[in-house]
């Protein structure tokens, strides 16, 4: 009897420490990466890094101002393409979609979500780079925008469905049309959830490199407008990391640090938005 108990207790202790260690490893990977980035790139995150163009090959110094602006432009345009499509598609699914149409759209969105980003890159390349014979911000943003659609669409649908029927009926009973009710009551009730999803989609594509390699490509200089190749943080990290120069390596680490910081901030923001929403939703 006591042996049994002893066995059970030690098994429980072993399992507890095993799962605990695994959880610890999972968390420490993030901190290892963060520590690595800080150690190797921390000192390169300085004023020059944010304000200067890359230095010519062989010279020390320079910065990534053009890549930072390039990434910002890519993400902004990608949101402009992906968010409305995903949002309206999600409204259709939640509010109007019949059985067959709903199934097809939902399934397609899930497949698109699982499509490797490099495949989406090739698609944007074939559609927007080859015909015009040059790389561009627009084609890169198009590729990223496509990647944002399925997440935005599916979560919009989910959050709209979570809005109680009673709210819709309340609006209809006051003489609102269905569209009016969706715009003025249902969407506002769900907007925090949708905003969270959009932020997470943004964080997800912020670090995408593969679809940018042959759409936005890269640029050592500023990229005015939307129609020229542009530098971006992920592609810059790739280029600088495989170069033979120590200074470039340091800057690649710095860019990585900036990118990870950005993603962390977006995630944090999403969390804040959602938790506030929950506080309001409770009645």
């Amino acid at each position: 009897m006591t042996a049994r108990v002893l066995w059970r207790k030690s098994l429980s202790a072993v399992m507890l420490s095993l799962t605990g260690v695994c959880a610890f490893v999972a968390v420490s990977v993030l901190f290892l990466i963060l520590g690595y980035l800080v150690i190797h790139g921390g000192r390169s995150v300085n004023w020059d890094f944010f304000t200067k163009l890359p230095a010519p090959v062989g010279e020390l110094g320079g910065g990534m101002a053009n890549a930072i602006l390039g990434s910002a432009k890519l993400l902004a345009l990608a949101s402009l393409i992906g968010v409305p499509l995903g949002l309206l598609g999600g409204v259709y699914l939640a509010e109007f979609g019949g059985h067959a149409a709903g199934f097809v759209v939902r399934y397609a969105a899930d497949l698109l979500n699982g499509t490797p980003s490099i495949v989406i890159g090739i698609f944007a390349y074939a559609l927007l780079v080859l015909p015009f014979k040059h790389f561009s911000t627009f084609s890169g943003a198009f590729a990223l925008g496509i990647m944002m659609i399925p997440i935005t669409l599916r979560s919009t649908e989910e959050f709209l469905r979570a809005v109680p029927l009673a709210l819709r009926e309340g609006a209809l009973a006051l003489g609102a049309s269905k569209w009016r009710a969706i715009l003025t009551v249902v969407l506002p009730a769900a907007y925090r959830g949708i905003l969270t999803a959009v932020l997470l989609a943004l964080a997800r594509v912020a670090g995408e490199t593969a679809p940018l390699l042959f759409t936005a490509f890269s640029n050592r200089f500023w990229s005015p407008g939307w129609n020229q190749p542009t530098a971006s943080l992920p592609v810059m990290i790739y280029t600088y990391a495989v170069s033979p120069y120590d200074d470039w390596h340091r800057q690649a680490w710095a860019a990585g640090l900036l990118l990870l910081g950005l993603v962390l901030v977006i995630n944090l923001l999403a969390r804040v938005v959602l938790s506030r929403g929950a506080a309001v939703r409770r009645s």
Partner: protein
Amino acid sequence: MPSTANSSVSLAAGLPASPGRELAGEHSMRMNISKLNFYYGEKQVLFDISLGVAAARLTALIGPSGCGKSTLLRTLNRMHETVRNARLDGEITLDGQSIFLQDVTQFRRRIGMVFQKPNPFPKSIFDNVAYGPRINGASRPLSDVVEASLRRAALWDEVKDQLHKSAYELSGGQQQRLCIARALAVEPEVLLLDEPCSALDPISTAKVEELLVQLKSSCTIVIVTHNMQQAARVSDFTAFLLNGSLIEFSPTPQLFTTPADSRTEAYITGRFG
């Protein structure tokens, strides 16, 4: 007026043995339901209902749970049309005109509805009440409409200093009165309430009942309730439904003291339901 006469004829024809005839004689009817059958898919839930809703009076619908009270109430503002597979035959008129021939959003503006569970919008108290006037175009300044509606719903004194707070910060009873104010803000001709007190405590319930009694001078009211004391307290006419059929429809004192049908008597004396 001729249309009112018409519908009272159809009411009498639909309910030969009912006291509905006297009702129609004494009061002008705001709404008339005649020979209404209602189906969810293949399942019929209302059977040949004929009923008049007297103007500026309070009509109560009572009956055991599942007998079709909510369904009947929801046909009165065509809310049943949001349910897939729902269909009906028969006729419902408002002031003698078929409600089914009118534009549904225009029509619903004339009929207010308050639901079983308070359903304020996730907006401020002010924006909740202002919602209807905003979408329908208000003739008076919004703040006047909001104040007047909150006063009519006996909520003004409790919320006048916090109009811009979220409606969710109110108690359940206050939320329900807010929903009543929201409905009143579009000045409905008829107000429908579906068990408005079932989620409220006794004090809030008393407040809402008092409010309803005051409102009926300016508004025609139909209320669904499973609470017979409530029906007896506030209503002028009571309709008793059982399994989708209208069993009895009489002035409230008469229905509760001398019911004509043995099933009504069984129900009000608590033998079933």
